[in-house]
Each structure stands twice: as C-alpha cells, then as structure tokens.
C-alpha cells in the first residue's frame, strides 16, 4: 500500500494482559452457568489488527467495550465499531474481521449484528447493510484473497 488512508491515527493505551474483566465470584465456581457478556466479546475482538496499521482495534479505539451490547438470554450480540476517520475505506473490512472472529469463537446460537457507530462514517448505511447481509458475507469468505487479508488481521487476536 503506497498511501495510508489515515496516516496519523490517534493511538490509545491498550489494557494489559488478556482480559480486562474483573474477577467475579462465579469464576471460581465451575458449576455455575457462565453467560457471555460484553467484556468477553471485547476480549475476543480487541486484539484484531487494523488492516493498515500495525495496531490493534483497541489501540485505535475502533473497538470499545461500551459499544458492545450482549444478551446471553436472547443469544444476541451487537458490536458497534468506530472507524478512525469518516471516509475510511477499510470500514467494511474491519467489520468483516470482527464478524469472522465472532463467527469462529461464539456458540452458533448467537445472532451477531455489526455496525458502524452512528455518525462516524460517511457511508454508514451502505457499510452496515453489507456487513449484515449473510449472503454477501458468505460469498466474501469464499474469496481466497479476501480471506487471507482477514486471517492476517485475525492472526494477532488472542
């Protein structure tokens, strides 16, 4: 890539370690049901690499824990992400990476919606529509070149 779309992104401090989740009493109790929460989803996606910077989605503030909505009971997850700049042409790719990561890690009962945080991208509607069209996502993942790019971004996800 010759020119970066966002040459000087703001970098935020990433939390240390694998999980920023606070310890819960139920963590030590193996018998208790362990519902999936926003922190767990955030932990799955925060270390995904940005497609054009050697930085994580957390470091770029693209993914934020407070912008994730989870209902374990209804098996639903909504992830809103914030492109670094409103004309970011990588927005769809970032959303696809988040979707693939969750597709691979979450139990299949979960229905996942991915969208650009309201007001943070000039083609918000088009990006959201594409990211939530399962047929387009399925077709995209059969494109070996695209899948390779996605896998590269996911290689850093822990």
């Amino acid at each position: 890539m010759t020119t970066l779309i966002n040459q000087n992104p703001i970098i935020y401090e990433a939390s240390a370690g694998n999980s920023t989740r606070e310890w819960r009493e139920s963590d030590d109790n193996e018998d208790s049901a362990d519902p999936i929460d926003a922190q767990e989803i955030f932990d799955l996606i925060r270390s995904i690499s940005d497609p054009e910077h050697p930085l994580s989605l957390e470091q770029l503030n693209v993914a934020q824990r407070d912008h994730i909505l989870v209902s374990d009971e209804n098996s639903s997850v909504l992830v809103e992400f914030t492109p670094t700049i409103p004309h970011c042409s990588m927005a769809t790719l970032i959303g696809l990476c988040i979707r693939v990561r969750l597709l691979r890690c979450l139990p299949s009962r979960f229905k996942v919606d991915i969208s650009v945080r309201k007001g943070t991208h000039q083609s918000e509607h088009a990006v959201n529509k594409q990211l939530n069209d399962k047929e387009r996502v399925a077709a995209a993942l059969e494109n070996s070149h695209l899948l390779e790019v996605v896998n590269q971004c996911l290689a850093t996800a822990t």
Partner: protein
Amino acid sequence: MPRLEQLAVLQGHEDRVWCTAWHPTKPIMATCSGDKTVRIWQATNAQDPTKWQCINVLEGGHKRTIRSVAWSPDGRQLATGSFDATTGIWERDEEYGDDYECVATLEGHENETKSIAWSKSGALLATCSRDKSVWIWEVEEDNDFECLSVLQEHTQDVKMVAWHPTEELLASASYDDTIKIWKDDDDDWYCSDTLQGHDSTVWAIDFSPTGDQLVSASADQTLKIWKRFAPGNNMGIMTPRRGEPVWKCVATVAGQHDRCIYSVSWSKVHGLIASAGADNKIRLFEATDARPDAPGRLTEDQQRTMNEPGVLLEAMAVAEVQEAHGMSDINSVAWYPNQEHGEWLASGGDDGTVRIWRVVRD
C-alpha cells in the same frame, strides 16, 4: 386453526442449506448448500412421509457455494445457481444408473449467481446475480441455452427471480429494496413496473396461486402483499403506462418476524403463506379480505385522491414454529407444488438440515 407438525429431519449436508426445491410431480426434493453439493431426497414410501433417503449427491459441478436449485416444469432437468457465477443444468442419465450429470453450464454473470427460475412452459430460464443483472435464457434443443436479454435496471444485487404461475412475466427482488416486474414485447424484455415500499433488501418473492398477487419478504422484517391492477380497474387506481397494469401494496405484515426474513412460499394448493428467516421461526399466514374498519384501510375518497388502494388484505398469522431449526437461521421454505401432498412444507437452515413439515387442521 392449522398447525405445523414435523415429519422428518434430513441430515447429510455439511454446511448451511440455502435452498429447497420440490420436484414438480414426485415426492422428491433437491436441496443445495454451502458444501457445494446438491442432494436429492426421496420419500422411501409415499404413504409414510416420515422416512426419506438421499438418493443422489451432485458433486463437482460448482467450485463454490450452490445458492439455489430449481426443477424444470417437466421435472427432467435441474438448474443450479452458484457463487462461482455459473448456472449448471443437470439431467439424470437413465441409461447408466441413476446419476445426474451436468449437461450444460451457463456463463455470463460477472459474479455470484443468486437465483434461477424456469418459466411455467419450461421455454425460458431466468438467472440473477450480484452483478445487478437479470438474464433471460431461451431453452433450445440439445441442451443449448441462448441468452435473449440482459436486464440491468436494478441498482444493486438481485437476490431472487420468480416467474408468474401462468404468464411469461418475471419478478425480481433486490438489495436495492425494490421488486421489478419484467415483460416481453416481441422478444424485447422491459421493466413494466417497480414496486417500492420495503425499507431494506427484498430477499424473496412468490406469486399467489392465480398470479394476481405477489408476496415479498424483506430484511426490514416485514412481508408485503402486492396486487395487480389492470387499466380501467374498478378501484380507480391509475395505470400511468398505457395498457400496462400496475402493482400496488395491499397489505404489510409487521411484528411477526424480528430479524431478516429470508424466504416466503405461497401455496398454489391451499393458499397459505409460509415465511421464515433469521429469527429461527417458521410462520404461516392466511390472506383474507380486510375488514372495512381495518387499520390502514382507506376510504373511497382517500383512495381516489391518493391513488392508493390501501389495505385490502389481512394476512392473519395462523401458525408458527419457534426454533424450527434449533437456534439456526432458516434460509428456505417451500410448499409442495401440487394437490397430492399439498400439505407438505420443506425448510432448510444454517444447521445443515432439511426438514419436512405437514400442516394439520385439527
């Protein structure tokens, strides 16, 4: 009230099932999947619809997901539409066993073929694609298919094509949120109407038994029923294009599905509408005339001034199955096409299974 009873769960596909298609006359079904195969299923004994077996697996014809499958009206051929941009035509080789072989490959779309449909007479085949186009093919002798027309008026992916049950009239549903009606004028195909009203992708369409109505299913979580008004209709609905009917929305079903609706099937036998989607539910509706005081029903004066028919039909929810494929999306529902087993419904889902249901009236 009718209810749906599950008769059988057919396992074999190794990825999500995208489409289910009944043979026009026999208790046989073709299904296709992300596993790049088509499976043909047959009731082992037509008197016992709980026992099914996979009698054929069509492999190797496509390099990518097979998105849709459709039988020719005489049941002799099967068409497959794939993400590899091609359409396959398959025939059973009756001399050498019962295997199907690919006898033609239709090329032309730039990328994923999403849906295919044979006209009632079997003389025409329509295909559509993410390349925004609809192609009309003429079926010629010796498995030759000639492209008659490439229709490019949709502004986004075309998700599905469906032929009218008796006329040479085609409907297409699109990611551009519209449905278009296509007609032939001396081998010149043109768009005769564009149906606007859905707020998101229209995933599926199906005609009513007579073909005067059309049901559509959308990512906006609603179903709509559209009715054809001929020039000089007694509702006073204007038909701007000379001699050309118009299609108007006469019912909207909201609040019944709470995620994308991917499939809809209007029974040509008993008139029940089945719909299914990402909320894991199959729902059945009965379309009846709306009461004079139905919400959204316009007075005659309003009809005249707004030139809209308003709500003429009510689609009453008459049955539902929650978690019909467990917690998985349902991508396809299809009613059995004729009287013999008109009460059968097939469904295909992200769980990789195909299910057979029967509507029972207690």
